[in-house]
């Protein structure tokens, strides 16, 4: 945790995880997401899991190409993070829970 913790305490995070069926990747993504949220946004988040296999129209409407994709719908602006979120550091940066500069390549 750094001082640059930009999240205001009263904000509710609306997250949506797009998956394509119950694959190991989507399961891993969901678990990683839960872990991150519990750690950084306890009690201030909602996660909606969208299975594109049963709802392919949403892939088009929400411009999803890769799965799993995590979309931060709120707070604005919309952010997209693809992958199973196993790279926690990059996931945090992607969700803007951590500044970009701190990521080591």
């Amino acid at each position, binding site marked *: 945790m750094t001082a640059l913790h930009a999240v205001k305490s009263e904000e509710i995070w609306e997250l949506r995880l797009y998956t*394509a069926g119950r694959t190991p990747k989507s399961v891993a993504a969901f678990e990683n997401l839960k872990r991150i949220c519990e750690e950084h946004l306890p009690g201030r988040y909602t996660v909606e899991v969208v299975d594109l296999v049963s709802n392919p129209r949403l892939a088009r409407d929400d411009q999803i190409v890769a799965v799993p994709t995590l979309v931060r719908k709120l707070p604005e602006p919309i952010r997209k993070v693809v992958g199973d979120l196993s790279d926690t550091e990059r996931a945090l940066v992607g969700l803007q829970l951590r500044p970009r500069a701190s990521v080591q390549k």
Partner: protein
Amino acid sequence: MKRDNGAVKSFPGAQRTLPKSATGIHGLDQITGGGLPKGRPTLICGGAGCGKTLFGLEFLVHGATDFGEPGAFITFEETGDELAQNVRSLGFDLDQLVKDNKIAIDYVRVERNEIDETGDYDLEGLFLRIGLAIDSVGAKRVVLDTIESLFAGFENLAVLRAELRRLFRWLKDRGVTAVITGERGGNTLTRQGLEEYVSDCVILLDHRVSDQVSTRRLRVVKYRGTTHGTSEYPFLIDEGGISVLPITALGLDHEVSDERIPSGIPRLDTMLGGKGYYKGSSILVSGTAGTGKTSIACSLAYETARRGGRCLYLAFEESPAQLTRNMRSIGMDFGPYLEKGLIRMHASRPNYFGLEAHLVQIHKMVVDFDPEVVIIDPISNFASSANPRDTSAMLLRVVDFLKGRQITALLTHLTNGANVLEATDVGISSIIDTWLLVRDIELGGERNRGLYVLKSRGMHHSNQIREFLITSAGIQLQDVYVGPEGVLTGSMRAAQEDREKTAEVARQQAAERREREINRQRTALEAQIAALRAEFDALDSEAQLLCRQDETQQRAVLAARDAAAARRGADKPNGSKPKRGETAL
């Protein structure tokens, strides 16, 4: 757009080994022997602005409208609206096709700066979207334009490559005919080496500029399981979409005709065995500037229209209006025929666009108008806009194409004064059947035109030079005067003819004079004869008169003697019967 479906059959490679999916793109189906491999992906690669997207769109639109195969367009670069706008000028109503459920468009936006990668992923989302697009219209054709954009959006190349491989496999499994476009790379066909994944058919589009003239070319790099033309074929993008010109596919096996068509100059027909040009032959009229090449060409056009045939006039020097005006001055009014649509004129500058573009345009106009005669006036200007080899190749293609369709082609060629007259600087003399040469004959301080038939395959033709007069009643050919002083033309010929005429008149007058003299003499003699006869008659009648007088006198003497004897009672001499009273004695 009219399509040349008959030509597909003529391609020898069109065997039924591989099912094909016709693109509907003018000419391409001919090169590929029927179209793209059905149910397989085809890679279309080329640099920026070479027409990849249009290729894909045409493939879909023709599929949906002409072949009853709906299509899905997955675009990574432009939105559906942008696409629709871009092709509206080509007469494709994409919006309507989408509304009619014949085409599905999905714009896949991939923005690198919106996406962070946090581990393992796949592109199942894309698969689902393509699947959705296919299912929504029952697509048989899919275009991915251009899938390489994914490489800009994702950094994990291993995942991308694996997914692309899977994607193409998946497209094949779904049985759709796919067109995948890719940007041309430095040493590879595509920047990301897509050709590794798409191995059934690869078509390369190329757009190059040489001598400030841009030409587009298309080449089928690879087409598994089928023979195909391997050359570079010029193609054109215009208001009718893409047209490819597979002209070199034509061999020398076109039909020939014994039919003749009049040239519009009766005397010229006489020179050409009495009947004019062969139908479907190629005629070259060459000569220096101002020798009347265009007039000869126009005579053919006029005559053809007069007979009710269609003539396409491609003017590369004069505007149609100017040409019409000029021809009216020599007694050929194109107006009514232009109105009736028997003559169509098309004027453009040869260097306005590349040779290929001209070629394609000629191709299209000919297919569209289906003329009996095509006139290209002049061909020499092409030589100035490109190198001679390209020009002659292009003209060869034009002539070949027209011959294949049994169209009579008349080309005019402006010979440079410095050049040999019996040669063209575009090197097409060998493909010409009838070659008329018009040249100026400078003699006696004036310049006249002479015409002769340099060659005319397959017919008896005159070897005489004719003087060629452009009069207000059209073109006339005159015999030149060939005498002891050589060949005379123009006013020298006229003067010579005058001299001959004067001599003739003098001779005639002398003859008349002689005749008159003889007549006069005859009349005089006849008069003399009459006089003599009169004299003779006079003498004759005098002689008769004298004779009669003599007789009368004699009779009178005898009568007097008898009377005296009777008085004397003398015997009748010679025992004559005694008279009455003598017996009584």
